[in-house]
């Protein structure tokens, strides 16, 4: 599975857009990119996933360039409740079963 690299932590202020970039240089053709969010003392929660270009849902957008070696999670107008750890995962499209979590990015949203 492709290894992912993302910043350990980020700070932002309420109302700002936050972009968290993840590198996955060894992503395979059939892999797709998934992001999870984790609040303290809770299980990770699925946010968004994509294969290429741009995906948007009610929570976030995911931008994936043509070479797919990186991806950017974009959170529009963050609030204090978006303070959490955000994990980027590369998931095998070939009947991938196990998900491997890295260290994630700890986002702190300040008032």
């Amino acid at each position: 599975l492709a290894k992912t690299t993302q910043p350990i932590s980020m700070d932002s202020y309420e109302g700002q857009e936050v972009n968290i970039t993840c590198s996955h240089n060894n992503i395979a053709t059939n892999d797709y990119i998934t992001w999870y969010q984790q609040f303290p003392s809770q299980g990770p929660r699925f946010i968004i996933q994509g294969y290429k270009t741009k995906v948007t849902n009610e929570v976030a957008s995911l931008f994936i360039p043509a070479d797919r070696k990186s991806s950017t999670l974009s959170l529009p107008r963050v609030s204090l409740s978006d303070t959490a750890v955000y994990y980027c995962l590369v998931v095998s499209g070939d009947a991938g079963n196990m998900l491997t979590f890295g260290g994630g990015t700890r986002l702190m949203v300040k008032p």
Partner: protein
Amino acid sequence: EPEVTQTPSHQVTQMGQEVILRCVPISNHLYFYWYRQILGQKVEFLVSFYNNEISEKSEIFDDQFSVERPDGSNFTLKIRSTKLEDSAMYFCASRLKTGTSSPLHFGNGTRLTVT
């Protein structure tokens, strides 16, 4: 929205005791997982389970661990003889299928404290 539920939310046990952590996955899901997270550390994969057998397991999942789906709804993790280093949050997860965009749904975990 259907949820993965885990019980108990907290479990305190003495070293050497057996514990069973319980999970009710989402009802139509076919793949089941256990992960753990030691305080301040990464979420670590333990085991995956499909069609009543283990699909994959990590090095952490040694002979002290076992999983079972005793009926159509529950999925359990047993630790036979707990050690201090087993203290962690244990998360159960389920998904509908693999190989395509079928995300994992996690429960809110059981905090296991071994004294």
